[in-house]
């Protein structure tokens, strides 16, 4: 009986100021969609860096006159570094073979080269791409080392752009979330105003404060939840219609646009809980300011 009362009151409130409720719902949806975008962007960049990081290695080119002893001590020195996951020695012959393989359709590149024209090297795989610069600096100038190269710059840029993009979107979504809370508060204010006579009598006959508040709380929660479900639905359909297809159409982007079920579920969970939070904040703002009980 109580629940029936609460829900019928809430339904009546929503119907009475439908337009305001629609405005609140759509603001919640849009702001949460931005928030969802931030999350997905983060996931894309994470996938990209994972993908790249797997390929990031430091190439230590060796001098042709390196002695056996120098090579051994260099190898053990590199292996001992805790940032290093794995070291491979690539001989001159192997390097030449790889080069031939890479350019097998253009034999003129290598046909005239003597097989020992490419330097031998150590290929150093790191535990994390961010150590690349440090490891490179460490090995540069070691006995027998000719040059050290690594492909970290691109990743650095990528991470910078990503963090900028995330910050901007996050700020925008927070501003919109505040607006959404204010709109919810205003919707509830109108509902309170429309029912001021009922509220007066409820106080008069001794309805408890929570009994008076709950229908309005529910209204705010309802608006926020519908907004959250809309944004969640858009995220879900974007995932299944857009990203999955893009990954299939452009195979090299496949790993970038494939998200695990858990990741997507995590995004949905964030959207719904932030939405519910916004609804609660908006409702309590309205109740505190406009419903003196």
């Amino acid at each position, binding site marked *: *009986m*109580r629940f029936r*009362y609460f829900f019928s009151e809430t339904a009546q409130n929503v119907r009475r100021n439908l337009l305001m409720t629609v405005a609140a719902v759509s603001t919640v949806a849009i702001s949460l969609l931005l928030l969802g975008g931030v999350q997905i962007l983060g996931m894309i960049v994470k996938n990209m860096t994972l993908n790249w990081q797997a390929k990031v290695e430091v190439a230590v080119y060796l001098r042709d006159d390196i002695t056996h002893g120098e090579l051994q001590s260099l190898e053990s020195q590199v292996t001992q570094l805790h940032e290093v996951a794995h070291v491979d020695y690539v001989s001159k012959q192997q390097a030449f073979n790889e080069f031939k393989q890479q350019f097998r359709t253009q034999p003129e590149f290598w046909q005239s080269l003597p097989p020992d024209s490419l330097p031998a090297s150590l290929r150093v795989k790191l535990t994390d791409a961010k150590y690349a610069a440090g490891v490179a600096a460490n090995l540069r100038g070691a006995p027998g080392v000719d040059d050290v190269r690594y492909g970290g710059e691109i990743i650095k840029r990528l991470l910078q752009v990503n963090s900028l993009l995330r910050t901007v979107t996050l700020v925008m979504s927070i501003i919109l979330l505040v607006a959404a809370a204010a709109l919810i508060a205003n919707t509830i204010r109108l509902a309170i105003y429309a029912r001021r*006579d*009922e509220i*007066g*009598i*409820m*106080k*008069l*006959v*001794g*309805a*408890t*404060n929570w*009994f*008076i508040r709950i229908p309005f709380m529910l209204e705010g929660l309802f608006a926020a939840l519908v907004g959250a479900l809309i944004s969640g639905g858009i995220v879900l359909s974007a995932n299944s219609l857009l990203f999955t297809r893009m990954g299939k159409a452009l195979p090299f982007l496949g790993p970038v646009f494939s998200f695990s079920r858990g990741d997507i579920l995590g995004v949905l969970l964030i959207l719904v809980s932030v939405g519910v939070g916004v609804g609660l904040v908006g409702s309590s703002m309205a109740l505190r300011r406009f419903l003196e009980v």
Partner: protein
Amino acid sequence: MIRTTDVVKEYKGGVRALYDLTIEIEKGEFVFIVGPSGSGKSTFLKLLTKEEEPTAGKVYVAGKNLASLPGWRVPYLRRNVGCVFQDFKLLPNKTVFQNVAFALEVIGRPRDVVHRQVPQILELVGLGEKLDRFPDELSGGEQQRVSIARAFVNRPLILIADEPTGNLDPATSVGIMRLLDRINRTGTTVVMATHDHTIVDSMRRRVIELEDGQVVRDQSRGIYGVGT
């Protein structure tokens, strides 16, 4: 049942509504609070439901010191104090039945209780045939009866009436007073603010007269006043 000791009530801006008010009302009494407009009658009544709080002094209702009653307990106090007003305060979009039922529903009374008690109380106030009417289809006297039914349906210990006959013609007022008298006979304490001479003089109950926020007369079986 009701006791105030040295109550002072000042509104913002230094307007003094009540001054050194000490009143004691026993259980089952019928008390008229009389006095000109602005003498503090309504303020006194509002103290009893903690709608207003005294600037100084103490207010006891049903044995409880209202100053130490926490905010969340106030609704439970109000369930023991029924209120009737000059302007009825009925909800225009609800029927007679719904108006009275509302008072029970919002304090969480179960449906079967509501459906048993509401027709009973409306029978008591003489509106047993008009359950499905809306307030604007009723006369002023009938609307006040609905409002009394709503105040009394929960069987409060105290019934407060602030000028309940203020909007009614003398003949109708007599009917309302009979009803309040009947309610009083069930053991309910009735406190009624009024400046209706005829009613006070014909009822011959206790009269407390206020002037400028002070008690100037407290008389059992009194009349409205000499020279007014």
